[in-house]
């Protein structure tokens, strides 16, 4: 009958598929012949094949159907046909999760796994372990142990791999088989060795000592299996990483020795392990790079790919180490495998000279449409890096990027291009207009809301300051007409910025705003109405505060303050200045290079560090009356790294107080510290009000104690102060093993390093995207200017760095980057002084013998200006 079926197919065409028109219900119907006696192995085999084929095609089997088929199948164990029996095992595995009561075949499988037929034993073990749960496992434990050390490799391998699968489910049972696995590891069979090593590692991976011992044993005795070697290399490099072992450790020697293994798989694994090690020097990389270089000319595409991909990674960190391979890489840029060619070119872009850039770019553009998105992102990243290295090449790059932007591609790819163009624009003022033009063209037909809003924001920021701002208006307004709500809202904000900056455009912008006020979406309408009213006032200060520079408060903080306000209704209007400021201005953070394997994690708006501190401090009763937290500093270490007690301090500034948080760790396992406080002796008129002790400080569990200090009222200019700190506590000795403390204790103290409070602790960084507007907004009422000579500083970069870290203010308009070969520079800094006073600093720097600096400070409060100038001097 089956033969006939095949023949019919043959006539209907050679490309036909005997399984093509299978109906699940018909196949299940056919499965009834399993119950016929005698069993017809050939027909039953064919039906089982059909069932597995259907499952494989993704056909869904209901529990009833699966169970029925499963039970019918169990009868086939009566047949002794080998292939049929093997197909039964497969069916059991496929149906294990679908059918009920699969454990009824346990005894049949146990019989097969211990029987005489070696062909049955391995597969029977694998099938059995699929249907076994923890309780059943105990019953077959004896057989599993025997199977692991069985002399037939397929039996031993099957038992080892199945054990590995079951580690997840019943670790405690499998753990007892360690001795058997150990014995299997010395097997002559390469696969058994590999599987035994894998199982042993999984059972011991939490015990570093055992892993080290195991490594020592196998690296000395040597292994036969290349797979096992690869596994061993991975274990060794993980251990090196965890123990931060130096590169003179025997583990590193082992990995390096594997570079001389005769199997390419092992050599590559070792080279890749060395390349991925953190802090590898060029000299340590050299042997790995030279084997990779050899692989570049291998006839096997996979090997060439692996080699060039790894070299590409090396080139990111150590371009000079790869220069030796340039010639081999040149040969690969015409490789028929486009992935290899792309990687070769991007590597060369990192290692080659400026002169070769044009040629390489031409080569890559000839086939960029053929490569996958992942590699296109690699190309874009290479270009981005290149633009920073050779700023003069930006026109070539910009052209190339704009062509890529027009091609089809996924979100990650487009985002990479847009980010790259934006970073070029920010680095090179010359490329701004071409770059903006390309981006304008892109948003005309852009399906990604995130990118469109990002570009609109950029247009709003940069567009008004270009020579011809009017040409961007059309692109922006088109968005208002055509796009989704989020994009429309972003477009409205961008438009407002044009109106605020350019007086001659204002009337047209107002007309467009009027149109936006009739939008169907309320967010768009709200924004339009708001901007319309602000713009109509025609006041520079209003524009600066509400259109250019926006809110600088932390969003979770604002939410909490508003909630608080609604809980306690009062006559007073809500005070915006009571809201804590946002700590890290996000827009200035360098975008991180997305790894090739694109992560799909959504970026969550995590509460900032400061919001967490605010919460913690508010829970301590003594600190509840202090008002909102103004600023928290980075932790300052008050002890050396390897001392008995490790203490670091975080300075929290409030409007009239400071709280010092001491995070203490006790590294002595025979001591329990109690009532820990840090006593502080101020050098100025600061007044220590209160100590909050840490009640208990057991071994290696960090605890915090606090000191509350009042800032001097009478002398507002006393912003800096030095505190000498001493930690005082009650020691109770305890048993290192049990942690049981003695009944009696004694007082002791420990001298810490001095703690400095500087002007930076009183100022919170705030990013003003448009510094000029903010400068005008604050006005010149409290302006003061002074000139200083910085004798000890040799370069402008150094001076800029020093000023920023000293004042703790946010550099604006990317003025923290000093262009090369210039001997003058202007630095713009913005911040908010404790008590909610805006501070802006403009520092003109000139390089002669030393650096001369003219500092201009503006603020809403005169004292603040004095404080800043006094502290700089």
């Amino acid at each position, binding site marked *: 009958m089956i033969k006939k079926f*095949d023949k019919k197919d043959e006539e209907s065409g050679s*490309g036909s*598929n*005997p*399984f093509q028109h299978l109906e699940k219900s018909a196949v299940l119907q056919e499965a009834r012949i399993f119950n016929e006696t005698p069993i017809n192995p*050939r027909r039953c*085999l064919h039906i089982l094949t059909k069932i*597995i*084929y259907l499952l*494989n*095609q*993704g056909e869904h089997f209901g529990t009833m159907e699966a169970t029925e088929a499963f039970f019918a199948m169990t009868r086939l164990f009566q047949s002794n046909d*080998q*292939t049929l029996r*093997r*197909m039964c095992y*497969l069916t059991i595995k496929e149906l294990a999760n679908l059918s009920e009561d699969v454990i009824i075949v346990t005894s049949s499988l146990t019989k097969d796994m211990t029987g005489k037929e070696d062909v049955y034993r*391995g*597969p029977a073990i*694998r099938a059995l372990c699929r249907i076994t749960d923890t309780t059943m496992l105990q019953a077959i434990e004896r057989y599993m142990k025997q199977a692991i050390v069985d002399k037939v490799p*397929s039996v031993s391998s*099957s038992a080892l*791999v*199945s054990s*590995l*699968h079951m580690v997840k489910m019943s670790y405690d049972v499998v753990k007892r088989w360690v001795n058997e696995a150990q014995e299997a590891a010395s097997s002559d069979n390469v*696969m058994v060795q*590999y599987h035994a090593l*894998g*199982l042993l590692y999984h059972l011991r*991976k939490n015990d570093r000592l055992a892993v080290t011992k195991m490594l020592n044993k196998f690296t000395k005795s040597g292994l036969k299996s290349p*797979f096992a070697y690869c596994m061993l290399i*991975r*274990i060794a*490099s993980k251990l090196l*990483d965890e123990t931060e072992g130096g590169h003179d450790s025997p583990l590193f020697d082992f990995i390096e020795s594997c570079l001389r293994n005769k199997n*390419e*798989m092992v050599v*590559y694994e070792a080279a890749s392990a060395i390349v*991925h*090690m953190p802090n590898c020097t060029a000299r340590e990389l050299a042997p790995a790079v030279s084997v990779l270089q050899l692989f570049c000319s291998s006839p*096997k*595409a*996979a*090997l060439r*790919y*692996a080699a060039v991909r790894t070299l590409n*990674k090396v080139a*990111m*960190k150590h371009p000079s180490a790869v220069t030796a391979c340039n010639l081999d890489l040149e040969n690969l840029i015409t490789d*028929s*495998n486009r*992935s*290899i060619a792309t990687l070769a070119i991007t590597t060369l872009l990192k290692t080659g000279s400026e002169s070769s850039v044009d040629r390489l770019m031409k080569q890559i553009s000839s086939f960029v449409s053929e490569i*996958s998105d*992942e590699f296109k992102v690699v190309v874009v990243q290479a270009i981005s890096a290149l633009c920073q290295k050779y700023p003069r090449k930006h026109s070539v790059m910009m052209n190339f990027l704009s062509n890529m932007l027009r091609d089809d591609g996924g979100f990650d790819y487009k985002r990479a291009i847009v980010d790259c163009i934006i970073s070029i624009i920010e680095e090179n003022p010359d490329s701004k207009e071409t770059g903006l033009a390309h981006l304008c063209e892109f948003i005309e037909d852009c399906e990604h809301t995130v990118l469109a809003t990002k570009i609109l924001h950029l247009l709003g920021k940069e567009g008004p300051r270009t020579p011809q701002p009017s040409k961007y208006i059309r692109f922006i307004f088109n968005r208002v007409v055509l796009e989704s709500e989020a994009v429309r809202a972003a477009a409205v904000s961008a438009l407002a910025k044009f109106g605020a900056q350019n007086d001659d455009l204002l009337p047209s912008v107002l007309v467009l705003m009027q149109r936006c006020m009739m939008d169907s979406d309320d967010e768009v309408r709200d924004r339009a109405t708001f901007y319309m009213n602000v713009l109509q006032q025609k006041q520079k200060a209003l524009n600066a505060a509400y259109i250019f520079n926006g809110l600088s408060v932390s969003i979770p903080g604002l939410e909490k303050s508003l909630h608080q306000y609604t809980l306690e209704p009062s006559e007073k209007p809500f005070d915006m200045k009571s809201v804590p400021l946002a700590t890290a201005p996000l827009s200035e953070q360098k975008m991180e*290079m997305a*790894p*090739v*394997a694109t992560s799909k994690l959504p970026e969550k708006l995590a509460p900032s560090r400061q919001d967490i501190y605010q919460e913690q401090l508010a829970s301590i009763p003594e600190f509840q009356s202090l008002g909102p937290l103004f600023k928290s500093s980075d932790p300052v270490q008050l002890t050396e790294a390897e001392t008995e007690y490790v203490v670091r301090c975080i300075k929290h500034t409030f409007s009239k107080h400071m709280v010092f948080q001491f995070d203490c760790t006790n590294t002595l396992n025979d001591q329990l510290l109690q009532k820990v406080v840090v006593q502080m002796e101020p050098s100025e008129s600061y007044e220590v009000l209160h100590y909050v002790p840490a009640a208990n400080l057991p071994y290696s569990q960090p605890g915090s104690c606090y000191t509350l200090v009042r800032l001097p009222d009478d002398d507002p200019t006393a912003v800096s102060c030095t505190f000498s700190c001493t930690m005082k506590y009650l020691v109770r000795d305890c048993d290192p093993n049990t942690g049981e403390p003695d009944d009696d204790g004694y007082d002791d103290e420990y001298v810490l390093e001095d703690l400095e409070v500087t002007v930076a602790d009183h100022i919170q960084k705030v990013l003003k995207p448009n510094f000029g507007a903010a400068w005008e907004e604050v006005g010149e009422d409290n302006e003061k200017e002074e000139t200083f000579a910085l004798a000890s500083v040799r370069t402008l970069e150094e001076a800029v760095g020093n000023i920023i870290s000293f004042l703790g203010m946010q550099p604006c308009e990317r003025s923290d980057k000093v262009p090369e070969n210039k001997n003058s520079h202007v630095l713009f800094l913005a911040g908010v002084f404790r008590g909610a006073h805006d501070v802006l600093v403009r520092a003109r720097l000139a390089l002669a013998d030393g650096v001369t600096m003219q500092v201009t400070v503006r603020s809403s409060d005169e004292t603040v200006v004095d404080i800043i100038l006094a502290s700089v001097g």
Partner: protein
Amino acid sequence: MDSPILEPSLYTVKAVLILDNDGDRLYAKYYDDTYPTVKEQKAFEKNIFNKTHRTDSEIALLEGLTVVYKSNIDLFFYVIGSSHENELMLMAVLNCLFDSLSQMLRKNVERRALLENMEGLFLAVDEIVDGGVILESDPQQVVHRVALRGDDVPLTEQTVTQVRHLLPSIHSLVATTIILWS
């Protein structure tokens, strides 16, 4: 660097696929939850096929995964692993699968022959990869363990053996008939 140190593990293979020259699935086995639903799997297979069927190269990076592949006449074989995986290990699996099938199908690695020996394919893959762990990489061993009796012999011989297998029962049938007659 962007990739962390590899967690040492035996779980190497994420999927084994065989597609025909229309990109339709002939065989697919996924060993982890990278593509949990049939719909996602089919979309992935479509993407893979589009990117690979025209070129004769044997390795690619797709959707953050390393794909090694090989085509023969009207079949496309794929082995898929993490992008941090040793490419040569995946290649070893692919070669083992192909060589085993080649022996089992008597060098006749094409769609039709494969479809007539699906059970052989199922058993072979079961011997090569178990739950993502490479079980065996030597094609000789795989062929030996699959030990397909019938399908190892060409069709004509097979029919003869089958008939011979049936002979005793025919004999007995004839015998009983004769007894009845007499």
